């Protein structure tokens, strides 16, 4: 009994830093945001408290149970859904519609997202210029955040901070068994080709080509008003990509297919994985070759070769699914340069702290905003 109490207390203590950080951000948001956005004081306060409790509880459970992915997934999926609700509601409140027009482009009023960062880097390096019709401050903030995230988490961003990934993560968990199996992991190299192509074509066309032609998430954020055949074709493409890669294929394969086969930002983050200290290691002596980890990995980051070398492929998102799934406990979080046999739990916690700091900074406002919209719907009958 005493041991149990001590364990609980220790887990609570380990949760405290993240919980306090979340509370601090929430307080700052409460004091700062309400006046600017005209939010209802009470409802916004409630949504912030729920956000704080939600994040703190899930972090506590991760710490206390030693399991990562099942609690990460709950948070990640809720974050993606609430982000979409909040984003669409804000568009309708500000613009009266989900779509944007050429006038919005001309006024540089298009919101920027992290995926577009990939297309900004070459023009920034070559000419200190940003090829996006948005707010200069917002874009520069996102670019700085992207660089920080790349250094701190590498592709861990895709497992904890991306506000789109939760949609596929959720869809990939809807069916019990995969209907399509045996996909060759080499196809998960396509995002690198998309990254190269989108960077070069953006420079050639002076326009963020991936955003206009290939981004599937316009289906849950905003899209261009259909005024000519080219925009119609672009709309059909993004709808097909969203339904195919974000909904249908994840259900059939139990994999995050958009992240694995398309996203250029994920490719960019993958390139930063080799210079990131946080990674996953497989204890090849404990491993029995059951391949359960390869089956469950959502991004094709583990292969037969990984079981022999003990290392995942470059595109590992550090989601922890393989760590939780391994029946022999042979897979652990690891910090490069440290002894691979010791301190597994400490290393996992250090990584989770880094991931949660970013998640709270980037994601908590979106979670609170989405919750606020839902509460507003319940109380007032509308999202806006």
């Amino acid at each position: 009994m005493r041991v149990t109490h001590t364990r609980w207390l220790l887990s609570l203590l380990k949760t405290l830093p993240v919980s306090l950080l979340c509370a601090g951000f929430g307080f700052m948001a409460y004091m700062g945001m309400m006046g600017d956005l005209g939010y209802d004081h009470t409802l916004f306060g409630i949504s912030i408290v729920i956000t704080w409790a939600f994040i703190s509880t899930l972090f506590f459970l991760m710490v206390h149970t030693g399991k990562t992915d099942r609690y990460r997934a709950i948070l990640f999926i809720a974050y993606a859904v609430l982000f979409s609700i909040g984003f669409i509601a804000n568009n309708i409140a500000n613009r009266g519609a989900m779509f944007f027009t050429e006038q919005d482009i001309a006024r540089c009023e298009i919101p920027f997202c992290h995926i577009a960062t990939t297309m900004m880097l070459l023009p920034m390096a070559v000419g200190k210029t940003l090829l996006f019709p948005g707010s200069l401050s917002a874009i520069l903030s996102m670019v700085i955040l992207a660089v920080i995230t790349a250094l701190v988490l590498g592709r861990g961003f895709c497992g904890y901070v991306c506000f789109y990934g939760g949609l596929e993560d959720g869809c990939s968990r809807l069916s019990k068994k995969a209907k399509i199996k045996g996909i060759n992991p080499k196809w998960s190299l396509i995002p690198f080709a998309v990254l190269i192509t989108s960077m070069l074509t953006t420079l050639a066309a002076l326009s963020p080509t991936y955003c206009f032609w290939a981004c599937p998430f316009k289906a849950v954020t905003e899209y261009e008003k259909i005024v000519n055949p080219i925009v119609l074709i672009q709309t059909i493409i993004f709808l097909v990509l969203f339904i195919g890669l974000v909904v249908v294929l994840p259900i059939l394969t139990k994999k995050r297919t958009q992240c694995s086969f398309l996203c250029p930002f994920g490719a960019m983050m993958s390139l930063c994985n080799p210079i990131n200290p946080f990674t996953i290691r497989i204890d090849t002596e404990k491993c029995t070759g059951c391949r359960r980890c390869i089956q469950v990995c959502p991004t094709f980051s583990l292969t037969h070769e990984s079981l022999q070398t003990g290392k995942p492929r470059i595109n590992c998102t550090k989601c922890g699914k393989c760590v939780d799934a391994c029946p022999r406990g042979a897979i652990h979080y690891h910090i490069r340069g440290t002894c691979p046999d010791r301190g597994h739990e400490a290393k996992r916690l250090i990584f989770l702290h880094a991931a949660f700091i970013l998640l709270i900074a980037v994601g908590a406002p979106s979670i609170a905003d989405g919750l606020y919209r839902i509460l507003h719907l319940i109380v007032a009958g509308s999202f806006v």
Partner: protein
Amino acid sequence: MRLKRILSILWVIALFALLIGGLFTLGNGVAALKEAGFHIHPVYTQE
């Protein structure tokens, strides 16, 4: 091995410092980039 471990701990500490420092000084970073001349391309800002 010991040196590697010390370096990797320092690496992690540096990253946390970058993370927390970066988040708190984001506004300064944006101002510095604007000062350095970063701008939206004229193809979007010109009529």
